[in-house]
């Protein structure tokens, strides 16, 4: 085991990128004097074919067992050199890189000082290299299936992408229908509605045999690790089967009557109902939470489609990855916030979307409080951007565009209706800017407030909006017939259920947090769990769809090789030293460490597939029993010591 380290050091010129500032010959000569170094060379481009061959030949001819390349950042070429080393028969983790370009030649002008620093960096890398150990990449087979949580646009898109590439998809939706919020609200542009897209997607899913749809269902258990998840879903009964032809007679006799959440409370529905016309599965459903099982519906059904004796079922599924696309909740203003709840003519943006929908409660007519209003005002940023004490700090992203689109639609259909948009800032980013211009051309009136939010005054004379108009710097009063509160997006109330089962983490705004906002935007911090759509924060329909595709691509990337390679630089326990104090157990963010009894001794045990290799437990271990491969105490310490010659 204990062979003497034989290290080869290679100094890259990177053309002149390094060589112009660092005396590469001098560094190479210096490297030859370091302990365990057998050979040191400099070359114009180490990453080139001949450069890599230098390393390979030396490994074979000189019996090198460690390689150090001093060149660019490891984020650039570490994989290149690792595979070069591997192809010459050496374990690829017996390689170390010294970053003398980004960290040295590019940031320092003085040739002498830069050369000295490069020598230090090489010396540090050589010191660590001498202590490197071969690491083994363990492989696990994967399940070729994915669980997609949430049947909105984002989840449906992810499911379609995955199925198209041959993966089995379990599409699990908590509500009784696919479609999500996009089916109820939202313009993708002036011509296309969210529901158009939803209907197309539903049609594709219906015809796809690889996508298994579970509505009225939720994920209740998730075990295992990336590539090998075992999950359990609970399927609540619909009580109505496919014999239903949506005649609606059951609905008439049902005695339970509640506000219809599919019209955001604008209409009423029964306990047995059809969520919306293009709902999928395309038949009625009994809301199991409120049904009293009186049996009236079964008596009138002529098709024998209703069975109130159905029980919830639990199913076990094996999947390789999980995509969470559970979406958002619409912000609900507090009672009295901008007069909300005090006057029937004050509605939210989500309710307006239903009113303007040809399949909505007014069949697309703008009827608020019994008639078409002569004037209507949108108040922006309701629930967003700290406008009111109850508001969130973030911008909800889609409300400006949606309100302006609706304003244009209203001006188009009802040219005599005055439309005001009372705003703080207009955020029609990207190509949506054209909508802002179009609204201006259609004489939608933009009224700006700044710090002080407008107030909605309800009086016997009517509704007024009082505000300090920022552009004209004057206090004004606008009489209106109706007010639309442009409400934003908030995290789902039941997001906690998802978090409890999947152990993904919640970020600052209460939405799910990405592994990295820029470098890993559709990955959760847990390998194998991906995020799509508004579950990570406000998104419009297009962005949610794109994110669905992206998450599907990342899931396929994980599963397409048929096996997953576990992170080799993970923690491991020296059982001889471990005292079972369990400090590491509490420190681990992945629950990868547990205490096991070995010959009646309490010993920490690392579940290799769960460890992500952060090393927190190693720093916490009081006895040095916990070590991280590739970053062992002795390896890092060697680097520290070598920094001082």
């Amino acid at each position: 085991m204990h062979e003497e380290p034989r290290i080869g050091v290679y100094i890259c010129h990177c053309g002149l990128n390094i060589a112009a500032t660092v005396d590469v010959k001098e560094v190479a000569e210096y490297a030859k004097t370091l302990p365990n170094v057998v050979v040191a060379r400099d070359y114009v481009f180490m990453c080139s074919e001949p450069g890599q061959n230098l390393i390979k030949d030396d490994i074979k001819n000189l019996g090198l067992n460690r390689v150090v390349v001093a060149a660019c950042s490891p984020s650039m070429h570490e994989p290149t050199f690792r595979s070069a080393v591997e192809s010459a028969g050496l374990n690829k983790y017996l390689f170390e890189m010294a970053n003398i370009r980004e960290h040295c030649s590019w940031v320092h002008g003085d040739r002498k000082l830069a050369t000295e620093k490069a020598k230090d960096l090489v010396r540090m890398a050589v010191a660590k290299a001498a202590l490197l150990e071969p690491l083994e990449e363990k492989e696990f087979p994967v399940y070729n299936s994915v669980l997609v949580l949430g049947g909105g646009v984002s989840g449906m898109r992810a499911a379609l992408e995955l199925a198209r590439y041959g993966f089995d998809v379990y599409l699990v939706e908590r509500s009784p229908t696919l479609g999500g919020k996009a089916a109820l609200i939202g313009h993708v542009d002036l011509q296309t509605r969210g529901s158009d897209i939803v209907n197309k997607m539903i049609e594709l899913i219906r015809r796809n045999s690889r996508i298994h749809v579970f509505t009225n269902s939720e994920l209740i258990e998730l075990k295992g690790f990336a590539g090998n998840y075992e999950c359990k879903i609970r399927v609540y009964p619909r009580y109505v089967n496919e014999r239903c032809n949506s005649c609606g007679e059951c609905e008439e006799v049902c005695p339970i009557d509640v506000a219809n959440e599919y019209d955001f409370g604008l209409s009423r529905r029964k306990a047995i109902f059809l969520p919306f016309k293009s709902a999928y599965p395309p038949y009625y459903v009994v809301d199991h939470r409120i049904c009293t099982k009186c049996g009236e519906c079964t008596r009138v059904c002529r098709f024998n489609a209703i069975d109130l004796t159905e029980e919830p079922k639990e199913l076990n599924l094996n999947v390789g990855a999980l995509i969470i696309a559970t979406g958002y909740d619409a912000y609900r203003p507090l009672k009295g916030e901008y007069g909300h709840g005090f006057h029937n003519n004050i509605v939210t943006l989500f309710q307006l979307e239903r009113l303007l929908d040809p399949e909505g409660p007014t069949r697309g007519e703008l009827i608020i409080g019994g008639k078409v209003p002569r004037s209507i005002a949108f108040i922006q940023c309701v629930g967003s951007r700290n406008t009111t004490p109850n508001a969130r700090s973030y911008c909800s992203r889609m409300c400006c565009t949606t309100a302006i689109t609706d304003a244009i639609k209203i001006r188009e259909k009802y040219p005599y209706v005055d439309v005001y948009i009372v705003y703080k800032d207009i955020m029609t980013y990207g190509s949506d800017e054209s909508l802002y211009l179009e609204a201006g051309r259609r004489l939608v009136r933009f009224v700006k407030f700044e710090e002080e939010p407008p107030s909605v005054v309800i009086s016997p004379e009517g509704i007024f909006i009082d505000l300090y108009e920022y552009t004209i710097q004057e206090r004004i009063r606008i009489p209106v017939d109706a007010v639309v509160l442009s409400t934003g997006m908030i995290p789902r109330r039941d997001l906690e259920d998802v978090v409890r089962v999947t152990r993904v983490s919640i970020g600052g705004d209460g939405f799910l947090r990405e592994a990295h906002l820029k470098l890993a935007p559709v990955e959760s911090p847990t390998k194998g769990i991906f995020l799509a759509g508004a579950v990570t924060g406000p998104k419009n329909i297009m962005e949610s769809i794109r994110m669905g595709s992206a998450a599907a691509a990342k899931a396929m990337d994980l599963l397409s090789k048929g096996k997953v390679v576990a992170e080799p630089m993970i923690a491991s326990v020296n059982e001889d030293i471990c005292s079972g104090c369990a400090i590491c157990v509490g420190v681990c963010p992945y629950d990868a460490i547990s205490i096991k009894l070995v010959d009646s001794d309490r010993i920490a045990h690392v579940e290799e597939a769960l460890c992500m290799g952060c090393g927190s437990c190693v720093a916490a271990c009081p006895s040095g029993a916990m070590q991280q491969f590739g970053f062992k105490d002795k390896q890092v310490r060697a680097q520290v010591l070598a920094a001082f010659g």
Partner: protein
Amino acid sequence: MSGDFEPKIVVFACNWCTYAAVDLAGTSRMQYPHNVRVIRVMCSGRVDPQFVLEAFSKGADGVIVAGCHPPADCHYSEGNFKAFRRFTLFRRLLDSLGIERERFRLEWISASEAGKWVQVVNEMVNDLKKLGPLREKLEVR
């Protein structure tokens, strides 16, 4: 104190944020003092306070531990918080060892904050030049 004293600073940079910021400073050709030697670790949560003490004892005049911004930037969810807790306590230890607090910095530098990295290095080099070499101080004792 000699005017040409050049302090040596050891930096423990997390792989995901700060190491990337140092790389970005390079690709952006920002110029900063040569006094820093960066050691890559996967997470600021990996940095054992013992490494820092060892650096000081072997001749470092200053040490920087740098990672991702709290609360949410950490690649490993919460390693930065662990570093924060450890090194908050660690500072008190430095007091009792007679090592000035200015010689140790815990910094949050995201992958895009190359400018902040340069600023931190500049500040620290200036601070340390004022303080003088640590070794002299320790040897006097």
